[in-house]
């Protein structure tokens, strides 16, 4: 894995595996696709979904039983990003710690570069 690529924390990997199991998705053929879309108050928003489709130009990152897929264009926005999991009282879910984001909106759902 390249140092500049996306990293997934143990907590995020555990949460992803648990969700795959709860949705009866086979771990050996399921990927977690992460990407960036237009949207949100700041212009860009994160996109996270399970898929069994891997494209030729996807980057694959494996950690803790999870295989993350990133398309090349999204990767330019996500290099160095840590995908974490928050189970705290202030909100439960995946968290993107993205060093490329110059700003985020109030709800944290979108970012600008």
């Amino acid at each position, binding site marked *: 894995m390249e140092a500049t690529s996306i990293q997934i924390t143990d907590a995020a990997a555990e949460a992803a595996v648990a969700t795959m199991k709860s949705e009866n998705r086979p771990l050996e053929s399921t990927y977690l696709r992460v*990407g*960036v*879309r*237009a*949207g*949100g*108050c*700041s*212009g*860009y*928003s994160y*996109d996270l979904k399970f898929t069994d489709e891997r494209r030729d130009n996807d980057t694959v990152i494996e950690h803790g039983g999870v295989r993350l897929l990133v*398309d090349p*264009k*999204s990767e330019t*926005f996500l290099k160095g990003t840590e995908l974490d999991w928050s189970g705290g009282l202030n909100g439960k879910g995946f968290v993107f710690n993205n060093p490329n984001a110059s*700003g985020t*909106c*109030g709800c944290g*759902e*979108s970012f*600008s570069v």
Partner: protein
Amino acid sequence: MESAIPTRTVHGYSVPAAVSDPAFDYEVLAQEPAFLIAPWERRVDVIGPDAASFLHQLLTQDIRTMSVGDSRPAAQADRTGHLQAELRVFRADEETIHVRVGSPYVSEFVATLEKHIIMEDVELRMPFDEPAAVLFFGDFRAEEALRELGGTSMPVHEVGPDDRVCFLNSTSLPALRKAMEEISAREIGWDAFNRRRIECGRAWPGLDVGPERLVPEAGYEDHISYNKGCYLGQETLARLHYRGRPNWQLVRLQMDGEDLPSNDTDLLDASGERVGWITSSASTPTASTPTASTPTPTAVVALGYLHRRFRETPTNLTTPSGRTVTWIPDSQ
């Protein structure tokens, strides 16, 4: 010796001030199908399965709920809610959306769209190499002729609800003029249109509105959906809508006298405090006949910004030279 036809420069294009004379042009615009050659108009097509959702995420208007054939005003804002582009969006089919955009905005608009295409399955096209555009006012009868010339049209609201903007290649313009003649649509010049759009409160980019203005300040409330969810600039615009009011608001004005004020003339309240400024104005054609929808024939009509403080407790409004100015509220 024939006198030269006066021209006006609009967004860098030289256009005739009048085709006959401004007063007659204005009468034509008020009463008959009329058209104006509008070389500043551009059309950008957003094509692909994600076209609607992509624009929905970036523009102020609700695009996702538009049916095929729907046309809605929209704006592109920056993160802080300031206007980047004033637009008209037309859903041509499930995967094709035409966006009408003025030439001052088009480069920035396209650049912003391009940098946000990441996972979305969309592409942008400018369908006409050298576009010719015509603004059509009144009962539109030229659709068939336009189609034969390889052109298209879409509904807009410039000075009336039935207006359309037609796009075609510039080489087809002579043929379009002929087709317009056959359906008894008369060509008008800039001055008549300019006067009418000021009377209607239609902001003009570069004169009345620019990137220093928040979208609602320019009278573009109908360009914004407040229940569509997040989009670029939404945080500011929603806060402004639900928790406050814009300090400045573009309003219609009427002035005594016949001289046109300069476009940055201050507006003063009864105490002499600056409460606004003029952004554009037009004189009344002297041969015009007053009607219920047009103000006094000798008046100057103008657009300008007024501060909330004045709008809430209006007093007398004057210019520094002492000319009386009347604010025409939207309800009139």
